[in-house]
């Protein structure tokens, strides 16, 4: 009897495991996602190699297969590791920098391999060849309106230092134009957005730095992933080049739109400046055409200047 019971238990366990495994199975490529865009750049966005707003995709493609459908790819390890895209190979350049290919999905640095991640509706996939060790990059602004809107899914936690101020209103307007309806809350008000919703902080740096999650922006790219450094006084912005060297130091008259990732699944954007007027100008830069392909931008008057900057 014991033997029969054991056999029955084994059969049930096997059948359950098989059913669980087969649940994700299917014949053929599967359903094709819509509105998938693909961007390929080199050296932190300095050069655009490929820009496909309507990328070719078929079935439940993985990220690497999406890339292979749209351009030449040199992949190793059975197609799981990308070594080269469109003839641009991972390498060590003349200055000794090691450049590797990494990808961002909907504005967040990927945490899983490209062969493990399937493309979904509305995904923005961005491959960049960069010196990965130089910055602890987690989130970027160049996929806007992602991560706040991906396909038909919208989620945002908008917190403003002055919810009824012009800067916050400008942010709400720009977000609305991008298909992201948002109701702002005060910085210290309880979060009403769904758990894990990407966050946007709008306000002067002196006000929003107290939020805590964005503190690394004062410590440089190795901590924040942003090639700029904010001073605690809230008035000074130091802009860096790709090597992490300072190119300009601005005291007043600047705006900044940047993103950090304080936890693996949370992106936090900052729309900031030394005063409300500059914060409003930074909020006005929240447009897909202004932010496309940018890792962060500083706003100078009406212009959105990409960060990192070119070396002096």
């Amino acid at each position: 009897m014991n033997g029969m019971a054991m056999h029955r238990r084994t059969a049930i366990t096997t059948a359950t495991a098989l059913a669980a495994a087969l649940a994700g199975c299917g014949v053929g490529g599967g359903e094709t996602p819509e509105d998938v865009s693909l961007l390929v750049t080199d050296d932190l966005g300095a050069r655009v190699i490929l820009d496909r707003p309507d990328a070719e995709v078929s079935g439940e493609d993985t990220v690497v297969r999406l890339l292979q459908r749209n351009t030449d790819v040199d992949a190793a390890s059975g197609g799981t590791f990308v070594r080269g895209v469109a003839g641009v190979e991972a390498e060590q350049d003349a200055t000794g920098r090691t450049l590797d290919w990494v990808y961002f999905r909907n504005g967040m640095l990927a945490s899983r391999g490209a062969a493990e991640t399937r493309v979904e509706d509305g995904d923005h996939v961005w491959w960049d060849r960069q010196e990965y060790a130089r910055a602890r990059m987690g989130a970027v602004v160049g996929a806007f309106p992602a991560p706040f809107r991906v396909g038909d899914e919208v989620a945002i936690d908008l917190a403003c230092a002055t919810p009824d101020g012009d800067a916050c209103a400008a942010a709400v307007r720009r977000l609305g134009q991008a298909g992201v309806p948002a109701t702002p809350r005060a910085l210290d008000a309880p979060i009403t957005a769904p758990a894990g919703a990407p966050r946007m902080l709008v306000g002067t740096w002196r006000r929003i730095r107290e939020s805590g999650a964005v503190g690394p922006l004062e410590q440089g790219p190795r901590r924040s992933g942003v090639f700029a450094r904010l001073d605690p006084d809230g008035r000074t912005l130091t802009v860096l080049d790709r090597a992490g060297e300072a190119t300009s130091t601005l005291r007043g008259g600047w705006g900044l739109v940047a993103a950090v990732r304080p936890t693996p699944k949370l992106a936090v954007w900052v729309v900031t400046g030394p005063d409300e007027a500059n914060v409003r100008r930074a909020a006005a830069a929240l447009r897909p055409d202004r932010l496309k392909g940018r890792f962060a931008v500083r706003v100078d008057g009406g212009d959105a200047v990409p960060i990192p900057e070119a070396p002096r």
Partner: protein
Amino acid sequence: MTTTTASTSRATDRLLDGVARLGHRPGGDPLRTARPALAALWCLAVAVVALAAGHPLVLATVGACVLVAGARAGATALHRRVLLLAVPLALLVVVINALVVREGLTVLLRLGTVPGLGALDVTLEAVVVGAILALRLVVLLLVGALFVVAVDPDGLLRALRPRWPHAALTAALALRIVPVLARDGLRMSEARRTRPPGAPGSMEDRGARLVVLRSVLGSTFDRSADLATTLELRGHGLGVRTVRARVRRSRHDRRIAGAALALVATAAAFVAGVADVGLTPRLDVPVDATVIGACGLIAAVMIAPLLSRRGVGVASSTVRATPPVGGAA
């Protein structure tokens, strides 16, 4: 003894029996008539072509020609055994490749997401890559079997000894020793049948079966090397100048050697990109004049020297120490 144990035991004995029958048998066909070194070179050249070629039609042509050469050289039975062993192995290669290789754009099956491995998709391109690898493996096994039957190990030893005495002796002994060890394994298997059921070493003892197989097949080179060292210590080949018997050249030597060189040149052409195929991310397996021409050339180069019936019947490795009386052959 249970049915499963009995059938597995019979399979083991069949394997050992097949290995025991391995070995060169003198014959009158061109490949066995030519000098052993040249016959070995021919087999090696065929293997190089199989390694260099990536087109399935070319590999299939090489395989078919090897089978034809094997039929001429009396290796048909061995080729049949090899194919029986090789087919399941080839299927395994295809399956593993299909699961491991993530390249390819034509998805046949989606096997879900496996933790640690990610998305497990089977693509047509990965299956084809695996099939080509499997076909190459089968061809190489067939060439190996032909080598064992067609190349006289003693003749090869005589050809290699002047330059690499120890390696030549070891290699020749390895070829000789495998059938001997297999016959030992069969005798051990017979002995195990006399033990009572349930006793250690009896037919039910699966561990003992594995030990027999491992000891027979796994230590070939070690035993060959030991034997070679022992023979050399006893004076075999140690600084003694042997009388180099003059081996008569035959027309088959030239043809076999010429075919080997032509095959190596063909392999070089494949490496340079002739009859190349694209496998990933998209399949591109052309069947054009170049590919068909390459197949035709390989078939002609491989088979033509083996078809000749002139001058066969006298093995060129036969050595006359003294000239015949009256000059009669």
